[in-house]
């Protein structure tokens, strides 16, 4: 549980889109996938996932359908829609610009100023 970072506001949606872009997932699967791709470095409260999922569905970025999971249980699977894919690209670009800007800013040394 150590070394985990709190999510910045607004980043959960991006993480979900990214996770789902790698293949259709059910809710719990999204959590696992985020854990996997972030190296378990991000802390997400499990229940908090669902309002975000429903919000993305409502915005038309995700679509959901019922299916059977690997555990042989009924589960609702989410996958990206075309607008979802587009949004993911935009958000990725935006995030990358922000990350580069932030890390450049934080790497600044006194002699560079």
């Amino acid at each position: 549980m150590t070394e985990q970072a709190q999510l910045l506001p607004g980043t959960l949606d991006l993480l979900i889109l990214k996770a789902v872009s790698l293949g259709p997932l059910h809710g719990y699967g999204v959590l696992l996938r985020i854990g996997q791709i972030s190296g378990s470095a991000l802390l997400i409260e499990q229940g908090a996932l669902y309002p975000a999922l429903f919000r993305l569905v409502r915005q038309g970025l995700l679509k959901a359908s019922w299916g059977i999971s690997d555990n042989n249980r009924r589960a609702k699977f989410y996958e990206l829609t075309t607008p979802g894919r587009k949004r993911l690209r935009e958000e990725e670009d935006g995030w990358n610009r922000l990350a580069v800007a932030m890390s450049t800013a934080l790497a600044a040394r006194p002699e560079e100023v």
Partner: protein
Amino acid sequence: MNFISYFRSLVARVLRGSEISDEMDEELRSHIAHRADDLERDGLVRVEAERRARIEFGGRERYKEESYEALGGNFFHSLVGDVRFALRVLRKSPGFTIAAVVTLALAIGANSVVFAVLNGLFIRPLNVPHSQDLYSLQRGKDTYIIQSYPDYLDLRDRNRSFDGLAAYNISEVALDTGKNPASVWGYETSGNYFDELRIRPYLGRLFHGSDEHGPNSAPYIVFSYAYWHSRFQDDRGVVGRTVRLNKHPFTILGVAPPEFHGTLLFFSPDFFVPMVNAEQIDAGSFLNARGTRWVFELLGHLKPGVTPTQASADLSSIGSYLTKAYPKDDDQPSFSLVRPGLHGNFFAPAIRAFLTGLMLLAGLILLAACANLGSLFAARAADRSREVALRLALGSSRSRILRQLFIEAVLISLAGGAAGLWGGVMVLHWLSGWKPFPEFPMNIPVNPDANVYLVALLLALISGLLFGAVPVRQVLRTNPYEIVKAGSTARMGRGIAVRDVLLVVQIAICAVLVTSSMVAMRGLAHSLHTNLGFDPQNTMLVDTDLRMAGYQGDEIPAMQKRMSDTIQTIPGVSAVGLVDVPPLHMGWSISNVFSDQTTDFRPSNAAATVIRYKVSAEYFRAARTALLTGRIFSNHDDMKAPGVAVVNREFARKILGSTTDAIGKHFKLPDGTRIEVVGIVEDGKYTANIAEDPQPAMFLSILQQPASDTVMVVRTTTEMGRDPAQLATAIRSKLRGLDAGLPSFIQTWDEEMNGALFGSRMATASLGVMGVMGAMLSITGIFGMAAYSVSKRLKELGIRVALGAQRREVLQAALGRAFKLLAVGSVAGLVLGLLATRVLAYIVYQATPRDPLVLCGAVLAMALLGLLATWIPAQRALQVNPLVLLREE
């Protein structure tokens, strides 16, 4: 796309609410099961794994709620749920609900009635096509509306601002449709009247300007729809038939449309005839008299693009031409425009001031009701703090709980608004059909319209939000943990609560209302005991117009003498006098008078404008108007004798300089007639306003100044006066014996006085209603507060009783606070009320706030209200049984 999917999910939410809820449940369950599978794989027992999975998941209900919101449409869905819940809560406390709804219904009802009257008289335009550019003319610095006919013709033909100018006058005629002639009221109008107002006929045709060809050239009559409907039973065959007006034949042209009620708001004419035929209808022909102003109102549509200011300038230039051309008759060149419907500014300011005041009071009532309900709601919220705390602890958001409270408030206010509006509409329908003066077709156009409904709805919503907002702070501050732990019984009477402030405000408002209504009541009592200058008791008024039966010239005084003599023979009749218009009648005549030296009789040279009566010698005895000095008329003061007048004390003081040596002095009438003052009588009340200041009045001999439209003042003995109906029958049969074709209107002078007292009676009645409502509100307010504080402190009171407290101490503990608040509120209200009653003085005769009786009355009333309201809670406090109470805990 986004919108469509949002909309689809919204529709889905509403249509398949439970289905989606089930699906969501299943999904969350599936999540937990998957997690439990993983945990099981890590070596946990299944049961333990599921428990851990549930804990890790977090607040399931909260996430479900949030998911609902994320899905959209949640607001609407939960709103329906909240409304349902609110209804259930309200049904559980019917006493509270009914009290709240009734309180609001009264307040909103009062507001909608007052607003509807304001709306009907001042906001709603006249019900004619294109009324937005319709204006009436008023003239000079006195802004008089009534004009002479030749001036009308000049204004009509010379102006460049109006599409056309129409004129009308109000008249009463004897209408003979083949049966007994009846007296009806209607308009004499200019020929272009209907065309200028763009009124289309309902049946037949209306007359036009082209129908007029000089005096008495257009014997046509158009009936109003209402009159045609009631008198001719919708007979479409009446068009072309002939009826007789004052014995002259008139042809029925057609019927005006149902929605057209003329151009004066509170008077619905029964017929319309061309003004060129006025000679056949009125007492004389004034069509050529430029100095005689009798045309009631001129009005017309402005031409497109012409502003009222431009039109006024245009008319004023015609006005200055008229004053140059006819200096003797016209002296006021300036014109201005005014909205039609209320006869210019003649009635409007007083009525508007009164209605505005009333609206203010009604608003205060609503405010008091809101304060009342606000404190009830706050008390309820305090009682429900446990429920609120529990809901907060279970994860409900504060905004959701507040919304719940607001929904309850708004539901109550809507129910109250609906009930109030329903009651208000009943009152308004009654008011619309009400005829306050039986001889005059006055009506009050207050049918509710969309404006009224909208205002009622708005008021309901606003008051709901207002009193719903009172407990907000309480809820926001609720600490669930504390309350669940300690229970809600703690915390009473520390500091000044919002509730207390509200109660004081409410009591203050109610005290204002009670004080105002008492001032009004005192004013009315005053006006009833004021010296009228005549004695209306045991007196009948017989209104006849001999011209209606075709009498002319010398026949008129002869017939009047015959009528007086005949009625004098009825047993019990002690005196019969004639007067053209009795004092305190709806209408009155004024005349300029000039000093004896005047030779140029233009109005600006007048010594004064006085009220003029034409009376017979017997009038003073019949009316019991006391002669102070000199003599009254004799039957020799006729056409052959020099002109004489009896004047009142004010006339003598103001115009003749003194009351002692006024007898024998002379003055002149506008036509140059020299008049000698032969007697002085007491001052009285003359115009239709009992609150008037002393006015100069003169009485001329009817033998020297003939009038065909007169009222016989029939003074009877007290025994006879007790049965006016029988006397009226006797008078009617005597008159019929003289001339069967003469319509007459008979009533007692007391009845007739209703007109003069109408204003103060209406004021008193409406203020009385407000006062009663204020009193009721303060009773419920104090009662609510007292009952609540007693019920909250029952345990404490029980302990006090158990420790040996006396009755007085118990009462003080239970109700001391209520009484303190009552006292503070009452004093504040009294002071405010005394300030407010200055405003009342405009409406109510001698309404003085510094009346000790009013002060004592208001204090007493508030104290009584307080006693009444705290009686039941006090009883309850005194009957506290410590044993029972302590056992209950």
